[in-house]
């Protein structure tokens, strides 16, 4: 590949250069997913930086956590939107 090769899109370039520290594995994310989903839905100040960083860099885990938040919210009469907004707040 040379410098004259076709360019990546901006979005893809940023995903490739995304900082994914603090490190969290997909297995760790799965282990913490239920606790974090409930925290997002029920505690406005709750946060888990490692989870949010991981979700920003792993579309599969992001889809699954968003889905869990939506399902638990729906079954408990809660609004998922604020929780999902906090999940995807910039990690700084």
């Amino acid at each position: 590949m040379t410098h004259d090769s076709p360019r990546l899109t901006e979005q893809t370039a940023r995903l490739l250069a995304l900082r994914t520290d603090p490190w969290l594995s997909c297995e760790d994310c799965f282990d913490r997913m239920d606790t974090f989903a409930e925290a997002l839905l029920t505690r406005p100040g709750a946060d888990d930086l490692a989870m949010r960083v991981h979700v920003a860099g792993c579309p599969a885990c992001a889809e699954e956590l968003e889905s869990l938040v939506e399902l638990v919210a729906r079954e408990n009469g809660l609004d998922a939107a604020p929780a999902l907004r906090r999940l995807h707040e910039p990690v700084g």
Partner: protein
Amino acid sequence: MTQELASEGTRVLPAAATSLAPLDDGGPLTDDEALDWVATLRVPGPERDRALAMLHALMERAARHQVRRMRHLLRPADLATVEELTTAAADGALAALLGKLDTFEGRSRFTTWAYKFAILEAATEVRRRSWSGREVSLDGDERLTDPGPGPEQLVLAHDLADAVRLALDEALTDHQRRVAVALLVEQVPIDVLADRLGTTRGALYKTLHDARRRIRAHLTAAGYLFPTSRTGAR
């Protein structure tokens, strides 16, 4: 602990839709009835059989929810098998859950903990179905396409993209480059790529994590990232 769970009288096992009230004390959620789930599932007998049936129904509910979220990924032929896919995912999730029953620590409600198994199983199965029969090329650098003319504000971003492309070429191992390009450029689902490469989702994500660190170090050395910056280009 001020968390209030809507109970349903003297039920031994909880319904799926007991309510979570917002918390403001920062403490963990607990579900007293979760102990009944775990204890009941451990002891063979009619109560366990009943609990398993209820749990399978919960798994189906969550799997159906997940399949519906992702049904846009399925081809028309697969849409006819949505119920079959849902049931298969629920079966797999129930087996996975029972294998990990001893790891449930009560940090969330049992149903929330259970749902995640079904969501994972269903999402993975939808991704596999949506990519079945599709080739996953692992050339590593041949799919880096030109995005075409973009807004003026992307001039700097194009500089970053050029720098990232150079970093892919110069900073990564062949394996890291193949994995990073497949996952993020070609957008091959991580479960699908893991299947094709005979590895695990976790191993691929670690490879991607390491690749990103190398890309960032390359970009930092080239002046495109500040050492303390988390995501941004200069």
